[in-house]
């Protein structure tokens, strides 16, 4: 064996070196050399036994455990919610939340994006089986960075205040909340690596050099109608067909299979608006009066914190006619409480909202969201 070692032809890593013929020797054998070593030992009648079949597996497990430990130690109290984070950090924060509040928060996948990134949702639940639930998503348009940041802060808010905040506590005692922080992960990654102003998905379009579909023109609600483009190079390209974008399809599938979603809330930026259906047509929804009243109450609650004023109204009259939008689909599907927020600001910074405004935005938006959720809770 010593001879083997000195020869160095086969790369063996001696963990316990040969010293005395009475004592065993421990060797780590790289996989390519495994056969040769076994043959050598057997042909020389040297007894051996395998202590560890595959060291790499153990290394991976240990690494993961270290990460988990770090997470538990760091917790979500050290995560800077007042900063913009790349996708990996956001995903790590989701794990941290689930780890820190295991009896309330769990992480699930609803599918993968076009480029095979996981789409994670957080489920906030105090139990029961398939309770009625509220859906909240952010970041469907990737350049709207304040939305993903707000959603993450909101997750922490809900998790940390269950039990102490009477409103959240009573809500979660009766309903679940599902939160999709990054609805368009491919687009979000692209805003970090290539183009801060990217809006669409990153799907390849057959017959075009241009990439991506506007995910908020791709829903099955007046699909292909006014306010969406047929040009693949356009920022509002609706895509080849409704639900052609896997990101949209994943949400639709989740909502449909859940079966008891009572509210569909989505975050966009910018313009400071609180919108309800319709966008694909310029007629009022049947529930106009109620939605308008709830919207106004929510906007009022939002404004009470920092004075930020929001306009409330239907998509068509307040922003512009746009077909294939998510809240139109959810409303027509039967989810009455369908609202879209356009968060800060009104154009000074636009998509490039300073990080210093993340927490104020999240705090005020929370008041608006809570108003809506309370109404949903009380009107089931």
């Amino acid at each position: 064996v010593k001879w083997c070692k000195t020869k160095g032809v086969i790369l063996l890593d001696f963990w316990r070196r040969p010293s005395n013929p009475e004592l065993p020797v421990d060797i780590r054998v790289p996989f390519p050399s495994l056969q040769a070593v076994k043959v050598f030992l057997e042909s020389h009648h040297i007894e051996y036994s395998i202590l560890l079949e595959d060291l790499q597996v153990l290394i991976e497990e240990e690494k993961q455990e270290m990460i988990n430990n770090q997470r538990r130690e760091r917790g979500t109290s050290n995560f800077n919610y007042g900063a913009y984070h790349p996708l990996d950090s956001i995903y790590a924060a989701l794990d941290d939340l689930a780890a820190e509040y295991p009896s309330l928060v769990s992480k699930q996948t609803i599918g993968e994006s076009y480029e095979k990134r996981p789409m994670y949702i957080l489920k906030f639940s105090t139990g029961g089986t398939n309770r009625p639930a509220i859906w909240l998503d952010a970041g469907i348009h990737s350049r709207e960075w304040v939305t993903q940041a707000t959603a993450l802060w909101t997750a922490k808010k809900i998790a940390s205040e269950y039990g102490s905040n009477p409103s959240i506590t009573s809500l979660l005692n009766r309903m679940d909340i599902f939160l999709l922080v990054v609805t368009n992960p491919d687009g979000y990654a692209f805003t970090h690596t290539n183009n801060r102003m990217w809006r669409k998905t990153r799907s390849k379009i057959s017959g075009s050099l241009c990439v991506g579909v506007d995910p908020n023109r791709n829903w099955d609600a007046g699909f292909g109608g006014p306010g969406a483009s047929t040009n693949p190079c356009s920022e509002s390209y609706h895509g080849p067909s409704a639900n052609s974008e896997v990101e949209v399809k994943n949400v639709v599938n989740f909502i449909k299979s859940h079966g008891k979603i009572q509210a569909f809330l989505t975050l966009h930026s910018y313009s400071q608006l609180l919108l309800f259906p319709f966008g694909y047509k310029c007629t009022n929804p049947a529930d106009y009066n109620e939605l308008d009243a709830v919207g106004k109450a929510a906007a009022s609650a939002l404004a009470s914190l920092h004075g930020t004023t929001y306009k409330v109204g239907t998509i068509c009259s307040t922003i512009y006619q746009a077909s294939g939008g998510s809240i139109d689909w959810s409303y027509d599907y039967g989810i009455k409480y369908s609202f879209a927020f356009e968060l800060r600001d009104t154009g000074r910074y636009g998509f490039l909202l300073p990080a210093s405004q993340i927490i104020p935005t999240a705090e005020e938006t929370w008041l608006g969201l809570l108003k809506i959720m309370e109404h949903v809770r009380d009107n089931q």
Partner: protein
Amino acid sequence: MQRQSAARLGPLLLLLLLPLAWGKGPSPPRAAEELQVSNRLAGQAARVALHYLNYRLGSPSALRALGQVRKATLKTIPGIGHKYYLQFTTEDYKSSLNVGTCLATVFYLKRKPRPAVNINCTYTKDQKQIREDDYSFYKKMRQQTKPIIGNDIPDSYGNIEPALEPAWALAVAGSSYLMWEKSTENLGYFMAQVKNVKQWITKDDSIDFDYSVVLHEIPTQEMISCHLRVIWTPGHPLKVKYFCLSENQWSESEEGSGTESGSTNGIFNEKEAHF
């Protein structure tokens, strides 16, 4: 025959009559429609009026942003266009503090390339302070031996380097000219980012900047890249040349269009010289 010539005179008369008609009893009954203050076209028109104001004021320290629309009326003039009558509050572009109210008309003409704007504003910001701020920026730029350069203002995270803030403000003023020209009743603009700024050191009194800016176009959501050349001397009209990637040629602002620039006693009164 007679009706045609009357129609041609119509808009001219309306504009001349406007300062007299404004606020004096009911508007001439001509397909007038009161709009909700939350109406998006009203807000859009108010923004166009402010683009025009910011351009004409030509002062990086006096830039205004839209506050709230208080009153909006739309008049349809058949065969001519749509005219918005607006009252809105404004905020200081940098500080967001309320700096006064404006009355404006924005006339989208069918046969003219850009909206005709008439705007009167009250001004609560200290005029002397504005002039001083403008002049101190101007002086600093005149004293540069090495040209100012910069990228991505604000950056991805919304940061603006304090040293580059006045150059950014000048870009807003220059972009205001371009956004006013490009705006239609249905297409609106915001200046999303300065991708690039480069100063030209000049031998004359002006300061001279080259900008690449990105405009956010509503409702198409497109990001339009434009190249801007802004030449400025405080107290003089901004000189702006621009070229946007969707266009084939440079566009330029007029020089010395015969109207007064600057403000007096906090009230600014400007009339569109031609349309």
